[in-house]
């Protein structure tokens, strides 16, 4: 796929490939020209391509420019694509220590934690590929089962087939979940330095609490220009759309 894209771009633009731009931006970063690095990384994004490394590097560049909310935004985007990368996780952690709000995470249910462990093993595309492989193996087992005359072979193929049924279901489920999650923009970062969360989508409603820039929130609903948000300690309220940027 990348090859195809490279060809397309080689034909249309003058040798400005994502890779070459990436090298250019990285060089700018190494020379501490962070504004230039940010611009070049953004150019790559404008080309319509994404990559965890791209988002991660962009996050670093914003961090160096002392723009912590933007850094967190791009680290989260990177994490969405590559959930287990230790560098992304470490830097996101560092950036989060520099924001104003300290939010206690509500501890998750054991089952949810288990599910999340698998969920975060691979990204959406990898799970999708795994589901295909598993499915193919399943079909193979079915074939063997149907066509074989030997009892031994049939028994073996039956049990292996069952295992693959489970694997297929699991990987299919995870792939669909992750794809849905990645496609959907259900999380966002606060960008206004300090904004009051209201109890309903209007300026006149009760002030509930204040959140500061860099805090990650979950989007529950959207009405007019207001967004219903939930923060990591479970509190719910409404914020104006303009104060957020979706991950």
């Amino acid at each position, binding site marked *: *796929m990348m090859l195809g894209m490279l060809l397309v771009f080689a034909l249309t633009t003058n040798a400005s490939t994502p890779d070459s731009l*990436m090298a250019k931006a990285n060089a700018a970063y190494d020379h501490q020209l962070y504004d230039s690095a940010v611009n070049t990384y953004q150019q790559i994004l404008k080309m319509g*391509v*994404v990559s965890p*490394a791209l988002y991660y590097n962009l996050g670093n560049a914003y961090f160096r420019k002392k723009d912590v909310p933007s850094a967190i935004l791009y680290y989260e985007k990177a994490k969405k694509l590559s959930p287990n990368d230790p560098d992304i996780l470490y*830097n996101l952690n560092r*950036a989060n220590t520099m924001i104003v709000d300290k939010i206690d995470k509500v501890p998750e249910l054991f089952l949810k934690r288990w599910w999340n462990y698998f969920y975060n093993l691979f990204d*959406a595309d990898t799970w*999708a590929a795994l589901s295909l492989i598993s499915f193919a193996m399943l079909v193979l087992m079915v074939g063997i089962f149907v066509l074989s005359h030997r009892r031994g072979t049939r028994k073996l193929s039956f049990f292996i087939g069952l295992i693959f049924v489970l694997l297929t279901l699991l990987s299919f489920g995870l792939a669909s979940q992750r794809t849905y999650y990645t496609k959907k923009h259900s999380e966002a970062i606060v960008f206004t330095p300090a904004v009051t969360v209201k109890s309903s989508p209007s300026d006149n409603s009760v002030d509930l609490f204040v959140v500061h820039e860099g805090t990650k929130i979950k989007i529950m609903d959207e009405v007019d220009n207001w967004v219903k948000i939930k923060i990591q300690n479970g509190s719910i309220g409404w914020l104006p759309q303009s104060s957020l940027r979706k991950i």
Partner: protein
Amino acid sequence: MITFLLLAGPFRLIAGEQVSFTGSARREVKVGEQFEIVYQVNAKARNFIPPDFKGLTVLTGPNTSSSTSVEIINGKMSQSYTLTYSFIVMAQKEGSIDIAPAHVNVDGKKYASNSLHINVVKGNVATARQHAQRATQRNSRPESTVSQQNISNKDVFVRATVNNKKPYLGQQVVVTYRIYTRVPVSNLAIQKVSSFKGFWSKDLLADNASLQQHNETINGQRYVVATIRKLALIPQQSGKLSIDPMELDCNVQIRIQQKRSNASDPFDDFFNDPFFNQNVRNIKKKLVSNPVNIVVKPLPEKGKPTCFAGAVGNFSFKSSVDKTNLSTNDALTLSISVNGSGNIELIDPPKVNFPPDFETYDPKITSHINKGKEGVSGSKKFEYLAIPRNPGDFIIKPVRFCFFNPHDGKYHIFHSDTLHIHVKKGKGSGGIVYSGNMQEDIRFLGKDIRHIKEGPYDFKKVNHYFFGSTLYIALAFLPILLLVIVLIVWKYLENRKANVSLLKNRKAKKVARQRLMKAQKMKKSNNDTGFYDEIAQALWGYIADKFNLPSSDLSMDTVKEVLAQKKVNDETIKGFIDTLNNIEFARFAPGDARGKMENIYSEALQAIMQAEKSLK
């Protein structure tokens, strides 16, 4: 107490008038009662010699005053001049006292006054004591009702001055309070002092120093000036600051115009009593200094170094360390001293960056402060103690001290030298023993984000997800497709095989017959081996075709098995088997070849036909 003498203006004796020098006092006084003795001369006099006031305590005196008065009677003007020397005295015991004449010089001639005789009668002991107490007080209570309007603000006032009205923030200024007076003043008492809001203040005058006085002429008037208070002020905030006025109370001696009345009025006499009718009075006066406004300039932002911590003034800086070679658990002392004038008392210890493995303590601060005319100056010494815990070579980075000099308006930075410290391992005993449970976690000196990633980048099209994409679905269907194809092919092949076997089955008898015929031919052409082969083949082949068995599966047992499966009767089976066996025998047994072949042939035919019949 401030006192000075007012010199009387020069005056000449009116020509023709005779000099008169008289003394007067009350005839009768009580013990302990204060009363006045007054000597008057009607001309300018010198060298007043008072008499010996035996038996009397002189409380004050001689107090001099002079007055002139002009009388116009019937168009005739006459002036008179009186010079008065007065004493306030008190008798201690009863009895009669004789006071000798006083002497004075007028125009070179000596004159004597009259003598006085006073009777002292008993008074209340209490009152005597009270009087005595009052007499020993230096303060005489104001008993007059004379208004203070007699004293103007031009006679006595307090002025506050500041040596710099536009200092920088942190630059010390000196405020001086001076009293200016033309009249005798005593008993200065400060009632209210400015709170010096916005300043740090320090008194510059020592507590028991005597007040310095000098004379000054202002607008032609001579004043005595004394500094009553002097403070160093260091503004702690920028903008307009004001020093509130200081309020003092003091006693002022004033002259009162002597009442001259001809009529003898009992009240007049009372008021003209020598005790009350004195020319001087002590009255209380309130003095208020002028408020002072100061505009404090903020320190310039441009060029302000990061190490600046508020030191303003003119300073010098020295640093030293007592040793550079030591062992672990030994202590070294780094001394930093700052010397100069300015807000030295407010200077905080400069920051010293000891290497990470040094145990450090808060510095010991010693200061020597001088209070001078220009303000506060002196020195402040900071001693930092540090103990290295591990051996090695360490560097103590230069210590920076920055201050702002208001005279040149610039920031100055001092650096100490970089210090190289060599620490050798100390003796084991007596030192800290490191056992396993005293290990430290690696102490983070700083935390930073990790570096950027340098390829491979794994670019993907944005919003392009594998799951659910056309490729995905295609790939998902692929195995199913393959399976279906495989199944179809398989089935087809199976079918074909079945067909073949069906065909073979049907043709089994025919094929067998053909083989038998061939065998006959072989027999006719004396091909024994060929004959037996064909016969065997016919039989085995028949079974193979009929029952769709591969040749490798053919054996006697198999034949028995399959025939039994098909419920062929035992006899037929036996016949078949026997025939097969006979063929083998006949092959190798000697004897009548032809006859045997004939037998075999018919046996085989029989077997096949029987089988065929049974298998129908």
